[in-house]
């Protein structure tokens, strides 16, 4: 379309980035209230064909990050700063028209709740063809043929009939498949999936994840997976960024992260996953407190009040700046002054669990 993007050099992971996010910050301001910094200096990059995970508990800024990348945050009361480069195009502060033409065609998003993300009064077919008509130069008939093909590709049986049906007539998994079909209709180079499996039951979750993996690997699409489910991360993501209170606190490749979490928060998350091989009646090991206990980053480490490794210097501003995200071995970055030093073993080796 009218956007001339720098070629990304095919589906060669690690070569060039489809998406580069740098120091992205989102602040919500409301008259008469203190401003809330939902995302605070987030930086990451995604290469073609790569899948990255943004992980963290509710309210840590994952979804706001994704909306900011897509330019979907409301203009009023929201300040977005930093830089989001998509194939060479700067998206922060880009014109509405530029963003609209990119969205759906070159970058797409799959949302959490498949029922509410579909218009209940419009048949599935219309909603799928709409995207094709908008971005590709197709007429209705061609678009319908293409839509049938798309639904077939995402594993919806009898697609020609399904096109005429309304969202409430489809099962949850089917709806999510339809949404994925809509998102992938124009073969975007970037797909952001915001907790795509949260509203689905476990077997369907697995199917949807498998579908996403196939589609992404087949086409070299970069995938940003936003989730709080470490199982999803383990199954799908190449690289993982753990977020807490609006900042990335640990970045690592999937295997490194699971084998050797360094941030006590990551360690706590991993330890809190229920295990099938644990004995009956073994209590779960949660991270104590809740996300509301976070302190502002300016006053030290936001996780410190909940952290069992925390020491005095975690709670004070030491070197005149917040705790920095620093190099922590090859391919790893860490924001912590007192990281975990040994790989935790299942039964409460993380101090957070034992402390309860």
């Amino acid at each position, binding site marked *: 379309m009218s956007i001339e993007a720098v070629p990304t050099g095919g589906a060669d992971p690690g070569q060039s980035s489809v998406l580069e996010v740098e120091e992205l910050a989102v602040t919500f301001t409301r008259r008469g209230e203190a401003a809330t910094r939902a995302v605070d200096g987030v930086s990451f990059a995604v290469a073609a064909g790569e899948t990255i995970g943004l992980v963290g508990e509710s309210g840590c800024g994952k979804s706001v990050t994704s909306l900011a990348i*897509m330019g*979907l945050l409301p203009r009023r009361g929201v300040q977005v700063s930093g830089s989001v480069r998509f194939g060479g195009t700067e998206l922060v502060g880009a014109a509405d028209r530029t963003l*609209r*033409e*990119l*969205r*759906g*065609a070159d970058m*797409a*998003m799959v*949302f959490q*709740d498949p029922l*509410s*993300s*579909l*218009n*209940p*009064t*419009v*048949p599935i077919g*219309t*909603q799928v063809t*709409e*995207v094709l008509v*908008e*971005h590709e130069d197709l007429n209705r008939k061609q678009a319908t043929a293409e839509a049938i093909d798309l639904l077939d590709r995402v594993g919806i*049986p*009898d697609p020609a*009939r399904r096109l*005429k*049906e*309304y969202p*409430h*007539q489809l099962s949850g998994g089917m709806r999510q498949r339809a*949404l994925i079909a*809509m*998102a992938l*209709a124009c073969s975007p180079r970037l797909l952001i999936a915001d907790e795509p499996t949260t509203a689905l039951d476990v077997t369907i979750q697995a199917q949807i994840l498998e579908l996403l993996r196939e589609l992404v690997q087949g086409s070299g699409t970069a995938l940003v997976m936003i989730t709080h489910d470490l199982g999803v991360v383990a199954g799908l993501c190449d690289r993982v960024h753990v977020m807490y209170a609006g900042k990335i606190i640990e970045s690592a490749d999937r295997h490194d992260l699971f084998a050797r979490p360094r941030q006590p928060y990551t360690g706590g998350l991993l330890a809190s996953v229920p295990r099938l091989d644990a004995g009956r009646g073994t209590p779960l090991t949660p991270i104590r407190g809740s996300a509301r206990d976070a302190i502002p980053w300016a006053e030290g480490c936001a996780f410190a009040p909940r952290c069992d490794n925390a020491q005095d210097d975690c709670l004070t501003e030491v070197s005149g700046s917040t705790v920095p995200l620093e190099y922590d071995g090859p391919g790893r970055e860490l924001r912590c002054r007192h990281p975990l030093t040994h790989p935790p073993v299942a039964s409460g080796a993380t101090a957070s669990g034992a402390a309860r």
Partner: protein
Amino acid sequence: MSAPTRPRPGDARRTRIDELAARAGQVPEGEGGVSLTKSAFRRLRRNPVAILGAVIVVVFLVVAAFAPFLAPRDPLAQTLLSEIRPNSIPGAQEGFPLGVDNLGRDLLSRLVYGSRQSLLIGVVSTVLGVIVGMALGVLAGAFGGWVDTVVMRFVDILLSIPSLLMAISISVLLGQNQYALMIAIAVTQIPVFARLLRGSMLVQRSSDYALAARALGVRKSRIVFGHVLPNSLSPVIVQTTLSLATAIIEAAALSFLGLGDPDLARPEWGAMLANAQAFLSIRPELAVYPALCIIVVALGFTLLGESLREALDPKFRR
């Protein structure tokens, strides 16, 4: 089926389960695609209240449409004049099922013809009100910001004037004719529809599917007219039906106050009611029948509107 002679316990259930399993995942033929309107209509048909309302409305519409064929006499012809005295007006008798009015005109025929005028004014003014109100509502709901503020302040001003007072002022301004009456009633309907549509569009605009459509790069006009508006219409549809009742009552009220159609050749329930006032002690039926007509029509539209509200409510969907 090793023992075909005697059915074992549970056989019936087993076959039923097998049948169900065989049909699992299949969509019953002819059911591919049940839209909101279709399923709402289906629920409407099962609701006795809706049927009662619909029957009332349809009966009056038929009466209005075929008035010349249904009315037993000319509504303007004066008869039985010799029997009218200052203190007695002839009641029901041979050829005059409901009697005549003070000028000797057949009451039933006048009621039949009156339905035309009342329904016409009610429908036209409501349609006018819906069109203008929806236009304002879409404007405010789609653009938001200062457009929303300006439109809504205007609507607030309209809303702050009592509707009957407003209608009277407009009738006086535009002169006494039936079009003035329609416009006057329409103006009082505008703010209701504008506010209703704007409010429901604001809700729909922040819905997940609107966000999802934006995330797919669908242009704004398409989101507003293809996604937000269709989902915002159900309260407007309900309100339209209810407003028809109000409009008919208001038309009658204005006619009663002498602001209606000055053309005496067109009988109208409100005007008949006003006329009957003077003879309330002699022949109360002259007032009772037109009043009853107004009440029953209004009730019909209200019942229909209420059941439509239930039918369109997604909470009752199956």
